[in-house]
């Protein structure tokens, strides 16, 4: 323990620095690898499937004699499930965030926050399992739908899944609104709700929007839960009580059955490309929001 260490030479020192720099570059490398490999495996699909048919085709039917690779039903499934989840989850989550940061008794806060952290830690396959076993019966009983597993079922379970993300990020945004704003509002005679709705929430709005964006991003990318909850029928429908299949689910299910290198294999990677594109767009929007947010506030 009490030995003398050798001092690193300048060469060692700069070697270490380059090593660390190299490691830091790994995130760029991974991103590049994702882009390269998705393009490499996804683009060949369009040698066989016309791009227009891929994007505007209304039928996804890969087992047929003449397979059809139209992703509209899948896109539709993703939008239906995500849209449903957002509609249910966002208002509830924002209210919940307001409750935690503005209304709740400190003791209640101490209980709720860890609970939400724990909910965020539950794996998606568990949520999927819940949707498949318990939630599906409930939704069917309440709506009388024909399909036991349907888009609504997926949307509801997704709503629960994305809530912790939306709640904790909105809460951060709400909490970071300066105390002076609240005091100013109270000073001119506003009550608690008026202060929240007219002063605190507008000030936190950009941050809350970022939270919603991240929620959307998580919902679109979610695979296992929707896979187990929605029934996996690639139907082009806007009926929330119908079975649907999302873009993520189709990859997870069908990748197990494809021949590597086949058109089907490449088509699944092409769907991956679309998912990656969506990720970029959402990230871009969130960054733009944040930048505007920072630009406005002093």
């Amino acid at each position, binding site marked *: 323990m*009490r030995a*003398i*260490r*050798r*001092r690193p030479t300048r060469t060692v020192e700069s070697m270490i620095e380059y090593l660390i720099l190299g490691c830091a570059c790994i995130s760029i490398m991974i991103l590049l690898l994702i882009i390269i490999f998705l393009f490499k495996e996804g683009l060949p699909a369009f040698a066989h499937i016309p791009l227009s048919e891929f994007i505007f085709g209304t039928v996804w039917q890969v087992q047929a004699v003449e397979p059809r690779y139209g992703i509209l039903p899948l896109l539709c499934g993703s939008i239906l499930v995500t849209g449903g989840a957002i509609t249910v989850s966002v208002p509830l989550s924002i209210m919940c965030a307001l409750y935690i940061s503005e209304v709740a008794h400190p003791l209640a806060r101490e209980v709720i926050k860890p609970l939400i952290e724990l909910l965020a830690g539950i794996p998606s396959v568990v949520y999927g399992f819940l949707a498949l076993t318990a939630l599906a019966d409930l939704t069917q009983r309440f709506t009388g739908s024909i399909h036991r597993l349907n888009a609504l079922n997926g949307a509801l379970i997704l709503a629960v899944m994305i809530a912790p993300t939306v709640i904790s990020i909105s809460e951060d945004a709400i909490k970071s609104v300066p105390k002076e704003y609240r005091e100013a509002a109270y000073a001119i005679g506003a009550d608690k709700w008026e202060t929240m709705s007219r002063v605190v929430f507008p000030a936190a709005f950009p941050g809350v929007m970022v939270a919603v964006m991240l929620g959307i991003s998580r919902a679109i990318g979610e695979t296992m839960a929707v896979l187990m909850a929605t029934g996996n029928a690639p139907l082009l429908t806007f009926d929330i009580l119908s079975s649907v299949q999302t873009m993520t689910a189709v990859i997870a299910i069908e990748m197990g059955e494809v021949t590597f290198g086949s058109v089907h294999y490449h088509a699944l990677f092409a769907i991956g490309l679309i998912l990656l594109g969506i990720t970029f767009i959402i990230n871009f929007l969130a960054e733009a929001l944040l930048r505007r947010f920072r630009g406005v506030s002093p």
Partner: protein
Amino acid sequence: MSSEYKIEIRNLQVGFGKLMVIKNLNINIMSNCVTAVMGPSGCGKSTLIRTINRLNDLVPECHVKGQVLLDGRDIYDPSMDVVELRRRVGMVFQKPNPFPKSIYENIAFGPRIHGIAGGNSLDEIVERSLRAAALWDEVKDRLDAPALSLSGGQQQRLCIARALAVQPEVILLDEPCSALDPAATAKIESLMVSLKKDYTVIVVTHNMQQAARVSDFTAFLYLGELVEYGETRRVFENPSSKLTEDFITGRFG
């Protein structure tokens, strides 16, 4: 070495971004003396001494012009080994900042990273440094106790001991007593006086009595410029500048 000056500073300008903190400063620091740097807050005292061990290099937007000669060699010369410079010029900070390790490990930190052995065992270095910092008697039975269990004044002396352990030539103290009570301050002050036997000591302070008590030379800085510099007694009894006089008599600061 022909010059009796340990440190010569010529035409020094230091700025952070667009803000100039030190404007064209010249000063020569005598070897084996205590030199006090005084002045109101924000006059550039800390910046000045952080220039002497190039600690300002840590601040990305800091830029330095002019020369700082240590034993006649410019420390801002590209060939200067900054690490070696900082070994030769030790520093003690405003707030005691021991590492959250044992007392022993705090002192051993410097010798370890430099690989100083020099025939001395680490134990000897630790004992010698603690003795020099007048802390040995208080802690010799509990060298493995956490440094943070010491009182504020003891922590600051530990930090001095830690700086001494790498055998520096110059010791910079940046308002070392501002976080301490009067009793602890008195101990540090007498320590500073005893240190000048072996080291060149530069202490930043905004406390005039302290400067008067411990220093041989006093420099008075105002808005980044050297207003007054000379033997401490002369500066206090017969200041040549109105500004210094105002400061000493407590009319501002």
